[in-house]
């Protein structure tokens, strides 16, 4: 297989085997395999052989692609949307999947993981230390968050201002975005006709 040198099939599957949650990955169609690029579609099943995904994961691996966090090119994995079924959402599932991705990609000498965050991902990915490709996008998201704090959480201006002054990445404020008994930020945020989409990246090693 010409794409084996990028990442072998078994490693793609291993990147989705999460023993702590009893999840295992399998390729649902043959790889689109070229010397410079590999494309896989992966399903993630629990111990009852039920898929936990609303939509299969699309993963694209490049031998030599532009890096977003540093100058030049390198091995890059581009992750499509991960949408987990509502009933299968357990605390920390996104974090566990990401940790396994990171481990396997790191062991296969990938430099960077890239994705387009949308829906819940706009909060999940930056909370996992993904960086915004375009800092204007981060400013835009913070604008949405400030509106959410004022309108949904009912925070006074001064409190919003104080929280934003202390902003040091999404992980520093995401505790405010999933309040008990109130609409979560991502749910509220998707209440417009258009969901914004942000390009993000994270260095693997």
């Amino acid at each position, binding site marked *: 297989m010409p794409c084996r040198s990028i990442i072998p099939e078994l490693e793609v599957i291993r990147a989705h085997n999460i023993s702590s949650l009893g999840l295992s990955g399998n390729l649902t169609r043959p790889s689109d395999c070229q010397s410079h690029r590999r494309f896989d579609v992966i399903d993630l099943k629990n111990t009852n052989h039920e898929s936990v995904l609303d939509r299969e994961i699309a993963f694209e691996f490049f031998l030599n692609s532009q890096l977003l966090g540093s100058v030049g090119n390198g091995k890059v994995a581009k992750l499509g949307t991960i949408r987990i079924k509502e009933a299968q959402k357990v605390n920390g599932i996104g974090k566990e999947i990401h940790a396994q991705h990171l481990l396997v990609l790191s062991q296969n000498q990938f430099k960077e993981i890239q994705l387009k965050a949308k829906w819940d991902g706009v909060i999940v990915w930056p909370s996992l230390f993904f960086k915004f490709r375009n800092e204007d*996008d981060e*400013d835009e998201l913070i604008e949405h968050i400030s509106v959410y704090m004022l309108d949904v959480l009912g925070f006074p*201006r001064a409190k919003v201002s104080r929280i934003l002054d202390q902003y040091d990445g999404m992980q520093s404020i995401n505790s405010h975005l999933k309040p008990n008994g109130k609409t979560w930020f991502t749910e509220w945020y*998707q209440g417009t*006709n*258009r969901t914004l*989409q942000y390009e993000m990246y994270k260095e693997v090693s």
Partner: protein
Amino acid sequence: MSVNFELFEVKTVDSDEILFSAFVRDEKTYRITADLTGRFKKKFLNIMNGLYKHMYVNQNTEESHEYTIDEGDALANLRKYSSDCAEFSHTIVTLSPSNISHQYTLHFYGSDYNMSKGMEPKAAHRAYDFFYELGKISQMRIPANNYLSQKPSEFTTAEAASLKLEMYSSVEMVDFKIVFKQLLEDIKNGMLSSEAVLADRYKMYKRLLSHFKELVKFTNLDLLTITIDGESEELTNFKAISELSNNVYGASISGQMVIQSVHDYYRDDALDGLVVDTLSFSQITTWKYPKNNVLSKFLHNAKGEQVLLIGNTTGENLRSLVSIEFLNDNFSLTDEDEQNLKDDGFAVIGKKILL
């Protein structure tokens, strides 16, 4: 000069809180008055300059699209954003006419100010101070004109290279403009106006003058252009302004006043002082004269009388008295008063006393 600023406001839908607001005329002339996140300014500039864009996903088709704005000019771009933003944001954005409609421009041209780096920091700082003071003076309350019933909205904008300061206001500063124009005229003629000419506006005139004499400290200043209502005046000889200003004290002045009281300056055995007010009872001044019990006693008894005083300025509110003339028709000096005054060396001609 009439100017039109629009007010660009971004508000939350439910709580009606202002996230961002700015007065804006074009992409270079704007004043931000609120920015809750501290991050909207960049977006605001991007929108105006046709650089704003974002990626979004169509909720139905899940296709990605790029949203851009390029309507050709800053205000049109802001208007486009305000009409589209409900599609992708939980905010209400408006662009509406503002109450800012008056403009004063101050443009400093200096021998080395026209470089791209702008003025050297000290001069720039001094220029900002100068303009800040002008702003404060423009808001002085003049007793006869109470048009400043509430604090006007106003702000300044500045260009970095060859410092150009523009002051915008929601009200027309009637007195400020009159005084400013008078001062510029006087500077050109090399002779300052007296309190008698400016009456209630004299205090404003003096404050303005005190700042103009500081212009000499702008060592690299060639030219100061001041534009009010589209009419420009140019100042070049800053040393002459300073000297003119220094000569204010000692200048001959006159004015119609009402006698309020007489101060016996017992600690200063050389002087007494006649305390008078302007006819509109707005500014107390003291007109001093060599200590003299006869004159002081006479003036004390004339409290409330309207008088024409001639003298010289010796300080902000101090005058040295040269002559005093009583103006009321029914006022007359008694023979005894006249004789006593003459005995003490004063000349008395009708109702006028010469010191």
